[in-house]
């Protein structure tokens, strides 16, 4: 699954890797935004096929969202500062957020 995830994003990663050092930022956000920008430009160039590009964007983000959810559910490597997204979500959400109440 990881291979699919990274191969799906590999082309934009190759483009951006020289500019941005590898991190979770470089691995996800920049490729996603990069693909989006390229697709939007292409959709404007190829106006008659705009609806097909919309479908392409839809399918692409559907894949990305499912894989992001999968990545979130999966336990993170031991050296990572958080063990998994789900555990981290719960740990944060079961404590009262003082900012939300309005206490400095």
């Amino acid at each position, binding site marked *: 699954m990881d291979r699919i995830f990274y191969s799906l994003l590999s082309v934009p990663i190759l483009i951006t890797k020289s500019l941005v050092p590898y*991190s979770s930022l470089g691995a996800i956000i920049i490729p996603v935004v990069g693909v989006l920008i390229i697709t939007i430009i292409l959709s404007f160039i190829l106006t008659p096929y705009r609806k097909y590009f919309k479908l392409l964007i839809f399918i692409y983000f559907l894949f990305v969202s499912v894989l992001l959810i999968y990545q*979130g559910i999966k336990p993170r490597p031991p050296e990572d500062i958080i063990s998994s997204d789900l555990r981290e979500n719960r740990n944060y959400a079961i404590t009262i957020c003082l900012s939300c*109440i309005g206490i400095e």
Partner: protein
Amino acid sequence: MKKIINKLVYLRPLFGLAGFIIFNSYFIGFLKGIYTGNNKRFCAPFINCHSCPSATFACPAGLIQHYLSYHHLFKIWLIPKFVIGTLVLIALIAGKAICGWICPFGTIQTLLYRLKSVKIPLSPKLHFIKYVVFIGLVIYLPVLLGAPWFCKLCPVGSLEAGVPLISFGTGSVQLREIAGNLFSIKLAFLSLFLLWSVFSKRPFCRLFCPIGTIYSLFNKFSLLEVKVDDDKCIHCGKCKKLCPIENEAPLAARSVDCFLCGECVRICPTDAVKYGFRYSDLIIPRSLKPNDKQKPNKA
């Protein structure tokens, strides 16, 4: 079908109430303290403060800021993959229909606008503010300063968590003693938005909500859409009066800010506006649709 949709749209506030009850069903929390069960691993699809004693799910805006406020030597900041994945998936399926139908704070604003008063339209030109708020308070300041800055100003947090926890419940006396200027500022923000909602349509949703902003980004690609038949539209302006973004259906439905609330579907006298699925034309060719009437030849 049209009648059922019309009735559902008319009863839309009840869906908002249902949304509130589903995501805030731990009412005993007002006596025992906030819910700490496993449901809090998942987030609600709208802003719903998880510090509310009855909240059973986490707040997506709070989680995004929490992850971004992590600082690490090599990882500049962490991405809440699960939360973003969930929000993007919801956005791709339903677009901003979540805001239009089940968001409780949106429902409160809709109901407040029904009160008789002078009405002040909000210019669509101001909609860019929500992107500034999203980038500034939800992304930039948490990354830079390591604190959830949107939460510090969030009126939903004040309404669902601040006011109940400080007014009554366990530990309210201690909280009252340490509540300072920030609580007053948050209370002022809450009052401002509630009062503003009486005069303008959904000001918080249109100008400040970060979750609505994420949904806006995918509103033009979402499966669910409001379809407008330009040939049938007579530009009577009835939809503009009810539209939360104060636009005629042909413009509103094609906007990223459309709430997919269906008010234009309900009110349209010529049935020019309908709910539909965006890619149905691409998947099922138009010629194969059974209800399509063939247009007569001009010749």
